[in-house]
């Protein structure tokens, strides 16, 4: 998990495959520079000679049609339906789910969802959770990887194996003891329980071995000459970290950021447990909770609102997303 190691939420099949990215980041980057995206391969199974045959050409047209139809139906279809249903009165959605506004468009669904069922507040909570999780994960991952890869104190080897070992521990074992840690934090005691405190979400997410592995492998592959030159010029560990290492690490920081924000946005079980107060809960926890008392059209509008930011982020940073997801391919590089 990749990003899920800390969060005890079961690692969904969607997030799991990101783990193999651990394999290598710099070779990947090198390859990525030669081939900026998944879209230009040199050649595949079908050769240019094959493509000149009319039979193959017809088949390729068939493949195009098949891909367009299935991917539009499966990828876009549910989202388009949600977008439509978000502004459709309940009765129309229930009676004719595929009719396009037989009785007009109901824009009020969106504003009702936004203000009356407090989606605005939960939306804000979600952003706060994602932003904090992002910041804590970046700080821990970069300083930790810097220690293990560049500073290498004598205990680095032990530390490295202890961190890596947590990758083998399925997040499910953390669920109960981590919850009790939040209820009764060490040193602070039960009177200072972290329940309903965002730190209870941010800090466990920062204990993410996968991030550290990813960033460490990247640091390991940075040119040693640059680091040594900076050290000869008298740069101390702080200067080296801030002015040399971090500026060179933008690509991997982008990948870790995408992982961190998406994981925080998706997380459900852990915030459900440690944020029992509805006023601080994120969308993912509130949406199932409000379902029973909300009219269907308003509820679907709320679902649509909750989907907008991740979709928008994906459309803007498509390349980073797809490359992060595709990093998995590096395992067989």
């Amino acid at each position, binding site marked *: 998990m990749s990003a899920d190691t800390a969060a005890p939420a079961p690692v969904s099949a969607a997030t799991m495959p990101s783990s193999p990215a651990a394999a290598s980041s710099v070779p990947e980057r090198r390859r990525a520079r030669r081939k900026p995206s998944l879209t230009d391969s040199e050649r595949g199974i079908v050769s240019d000679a094959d493509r000149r045959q009319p039979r193959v050409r017809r088949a390729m047209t068939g493949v195009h049609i098949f891909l367009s139809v299935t991917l539009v139906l499966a990828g876009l279809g549910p989202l388009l339906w949600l977008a439509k249903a978000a502004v459709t009165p309940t009765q129309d959605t229930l009676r004719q789910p595929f009719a396009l506004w037989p009785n007009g468009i109901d824009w009020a669904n969106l504003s009702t969802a936004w203000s009356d069922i407090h989606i605005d507040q939960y939306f804000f909570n979600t952003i706060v959770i994602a932003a904090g999780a992002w910041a804590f994960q970046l700080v821990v991952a970069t300083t930790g990887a810097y220690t293990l890869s560049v500073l290498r104190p004598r205990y680095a080897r032990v530390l490295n194996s202890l961190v890596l070992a947590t990758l083998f521990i*399925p997040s499910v074992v953390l669920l*109960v003891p981590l919850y009790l840690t939040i209820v009764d934090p060490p040193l602070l005691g039960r009177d200072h329980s972290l329940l309903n405190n965002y730190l209870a979400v941010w800090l466990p997410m920062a204990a993410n071995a996968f991030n550290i592995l990813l960033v460490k492998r990247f640091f390991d592959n940075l040119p040693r000459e640059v680091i040594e030159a900076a050290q000869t010029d008298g740069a101390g560990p702080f200067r080296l970290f801030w002015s040399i290492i971090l500026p060179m690490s933008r690509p991997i920081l982008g990948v870790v950021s995408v992982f961190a924000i998406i994981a925080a946005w998706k997380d459900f079980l852990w915030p459900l447990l440690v944020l029992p107060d509805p006023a601080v809960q994120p969308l993912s926890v509130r949406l199932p909770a409000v379902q029973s008392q909300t009219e269907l059209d308003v509820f679907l509008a709320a679902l649509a609102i909750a989907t907008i930011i991740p979709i928008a982020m994906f459309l803007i940073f498509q390349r980073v997303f797809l490359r992060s997801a595709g990093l998995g391919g590096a395992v067989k590089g």
Partner: protein
Amino acid sequence: MTTTQHPPAAPASRRATPLSWIRAGGLSKLLFALPMILVFAIFSWTPIVRSVVMSFQKTNLLTPAEWVGLDNFQAVLNDPLLGTAVLNTLYFAALALVMGFPVPILMAVLMSEVKRGKGVYSALAYLPVVVPPVVAVLLWKVFYDGSPDGVFNTILGWFGIGPQPWLQSTSMAMPSLVIEATWAAAGGSIIIYLAALLSVPPELYDAAEVDGASIWRKAWHVTLPQLRGVIFVMLILQILATAQVFLEPFLFTGGGPANSTVTVLLLIYRYAFQNSLGGNYGMATALSVMLAGFLAVLSWVYFRLTNRWSTS
């Protein structure tokens, strides 16, 4: 390779005083290591150890924990629901393999062969992955409406198929969860297979063509063997993920109807957090430890394999 700024190790180790340690940069090194050490110690290492300890204890948060030996494990193994939960989880995993595993491979191979539109196709395929899982489940719950005017039942009606009960029937509930889970996860796998297909050396295809291989033979004898490693890794990852399935049964059905979708993780959750007698943390950790032992072996195999492949 040494990258330390000052080479203190040799003299310092002979007469290590706090002062010489600081002078050698020990303090600043520790400062950088501290965030990682702290969050891992409190939120990862200690809970992992505590999980094992707690599985042998009776804890209720009010009185001090007491040692109960194997009682928790015995209680879990005697729970009549355990068998159901294990079988349901295996059923989910098996269905997910049959329905979901070959689809992304096929889609990725087709997508890598088309000359134009690859970017659009990958974006479309990845869209469901971006939808927050909770939203996806709640939306599909609407799709699975069992009335004749439900979304899926309307579609079935176009083909002359009568309305299905979907989540309301013991036999259809689990397949319904798997269909949604497959939809939600396939895009990620497709992108990984696409990336893997990129790294198939083109020379192999050229060589196969010199030998007169047809498209089918190239796919079968070049592409698939080259993907073997990734396919195996994805297989293990999928088993790891499906063994811990929680969100779908929890939000779709809550384990029903008639316990037909209770999974192992749902059972752990019930022991700990949905217990009218107060959380039975001992039983919950005992079951977690048993599940984790099984999964740790799998992820160890996975790590060994990816490590070998990434270095080769």
